């Protein structure tokens, strides 16, 4: 019996790795279905303020790729969708995809945004990392550069769904696109290769209980939103509790990482770099402020990375204190940080206005069921297990299912993009053959 290959690819995850893979395969002339769980593609990169070491604006460098993916003749974008089931094998997978009800007919919707403007109900925004000053509406487009630029209704927040009232959006929509009766729909696709690029989340702040839960103790992505010029504070660095400009900010490395006892034993790889970057951007925004970084080591192995760290120290006066922080708690207006500087042999206490935590990077928990559906092996932390950790880093335990980006392990943007292209080439190799080849290499 002849094995045949469906020369189409399914990419699960519309972040930077998934988008890169999609563009590479599409540019090679093959059809791609790009499935993304949230309403828009883009992923975490869109949330950052400026990226290291170039200090590029990520919205500026990502949006051309996002638009291209959205408009490419060979890419079919299925956002607000999730993979329900997978059957078949390499060269011939059958995948059932659930498109969640958005209660908006995207074929009619022209993205005018009037519904969002008029909606009277607000809710914490996932994109703004639940910050108090970044609330969104019950009907919302997740961020300004969303692709597709179409809204969804959060039925847990929506007044109509919870209380049977309102329906203002339906009233004002000029093209009558609101449809409260909409249901989840299902699509079945046939593909030859699957690329998993489901990305990461940050380890929960609450897991490290000696650090107080406090509105002014933020994770890295929350602080990115505050730093971001197109963010909820227009780039004004203010603190969530009282809107004041923080003058003393502590950045804590390795919170949850390198912590076999209370967190994960591995190093999350990017925190040394992004905390240095955030400290620099903070100093650019608040020149008379002081930034402190508590660190164990500075892991700056990429191109230009070591020089970048030195810049933070020499040009922006960031003070590096060597030691892990033992406790963070509120004392009136300030946050006390108890740490140590092992280099000088001193125990230190800081009175800060704001504390930013370099939380560990873990696989996006929303992808947990997916791994089971796909049948791919993961390691004990949930990262996809490679066919061989050294020599076959982009292949999962299932032939025909490849991996790219932080779903495989913590990494920075250049590595995620490279892996996106790498996984694409795996699919393209498959498509260039007459039959799937399964022998190990």
């Amino acid at each position: 019996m002849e094995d045949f290959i469906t020369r189409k690819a399914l990419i699960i995850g519309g972040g930077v790795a998934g988008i890169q893979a999609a563009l590479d395969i599409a540019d090679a002339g093959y059809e791609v279905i790009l499935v993304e769980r949230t309403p828009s593609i883009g992923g975490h990169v869109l949330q950052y303020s400026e990226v290291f070491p170039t200090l590029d604006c990520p919205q500026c460098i990502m949006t051309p790729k996002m638009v291209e993916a959205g408009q490419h003749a060979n890419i079919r974008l299925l956002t607000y969708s999730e993979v329900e089931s997978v059957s078949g094998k390499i060269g011939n997978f059958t995948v059932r995809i659930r498109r969640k009800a958005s209660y908006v007919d995207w074929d009619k919707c022209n993205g005018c945004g009037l519904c969002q403007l008029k909606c009277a109900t607000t809710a914490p925004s996932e994109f703004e990392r639940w910050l108090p000053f970044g609330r969104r509406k019950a009907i919302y487009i997740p961020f300004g550069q969303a692709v597709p630029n179409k809204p969804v209704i959060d039925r847990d927040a929506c007044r109509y769904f919870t209380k049977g009232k309102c329906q203002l959006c339906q009233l004002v929509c000029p093209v009558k696109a609101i449809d409260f009766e909409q249901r989840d729909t299902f699509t079945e696709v046939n593909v030859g290769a699957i690329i998993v690029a489901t990305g990461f989340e940050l380890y929960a702040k609450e897991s490290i209980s000696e650090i107080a839960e406090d509105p002014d103790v933020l994770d890295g992505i929350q602080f990115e939103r505050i730093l971001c010029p197109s963010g909820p504070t227009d780039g004004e660095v203010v603190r969530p509790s009282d809107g004041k400009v923080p003058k003393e900010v502590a950045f804590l490395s390795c919170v949850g990482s390198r912590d076999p006892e209370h967190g994960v034993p591995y190093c999350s790889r990017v925190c040394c770099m992004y905390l240095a970057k955030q400290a620099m951007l903070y100093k650019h925004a608040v020149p008379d402020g002081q930034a402190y970084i508590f660190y164990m080591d500075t892991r700056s192995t990429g191109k230009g990375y070591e020089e970048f760290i030195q810049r933070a120290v020499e040009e922006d006066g960031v003070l590096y204190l060597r030691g892990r922080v033992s406790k963070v708690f509120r004392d009136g207006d300030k946050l006390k940080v108890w740490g140590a500087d092992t280099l000088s042999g001193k125990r230190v206490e800081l009175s800060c206005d704001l504390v930013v935590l370099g939380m560990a990077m873990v696989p996006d928990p929303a992808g947990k069921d997916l791994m089971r559906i796909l049948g791919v092996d993961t390691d004990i932390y949930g990262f996809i297990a490679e066919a061989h950790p050294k020599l076959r880093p982009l292949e999962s335990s299932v032939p025909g299912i490849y991996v790219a980006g932080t779903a495989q392990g913590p990494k920075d943007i250049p590595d995620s993009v490279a892996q996106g292209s790498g996984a694409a080439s795996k699919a393209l190799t498959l498509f260039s053959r007459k039959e799937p080849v399964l022998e190990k290499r």
Partner: protein
Amino acid sequence: MRVEISSRRLGSDFVKKVAEISGQDLLACNQCGKCSAGCPMCFAMDLLPNQIIRLAQLGLEEDIAASNTVWLCASCLTCTVRCPRGVDVGRVMEAIRLVTLRKNVDYVGASDIPKDRIGELPQIALVSSFRKHTA
């Protein structure tokens, strides 16, 4: 002055004794400093707890003996519960104390305590103090 580090020093009796009595792998400590950062008696110590562990790793017994750190430890075990590497720092402190105490060298003596204080101190304080600070 340069300190001589060699396999002889690293494998010294002192290092072995501390590891044995504490049951801890001293090399598991990567000197993150979290123990020192949270130690309640650190304000009076001349060396930080993590520095004591470092000296123990290096086999520098004399430096540890000259320091007051292990004697000011209150065995509060904050270091133990917060160590990311699972090193029971409290046990390491106790082991270092015992290396000295078992040579019959006490840190406190009953006769050192002023008479008026003896009457005031509850037995819970006296017994625990003598348990920790005498042979």
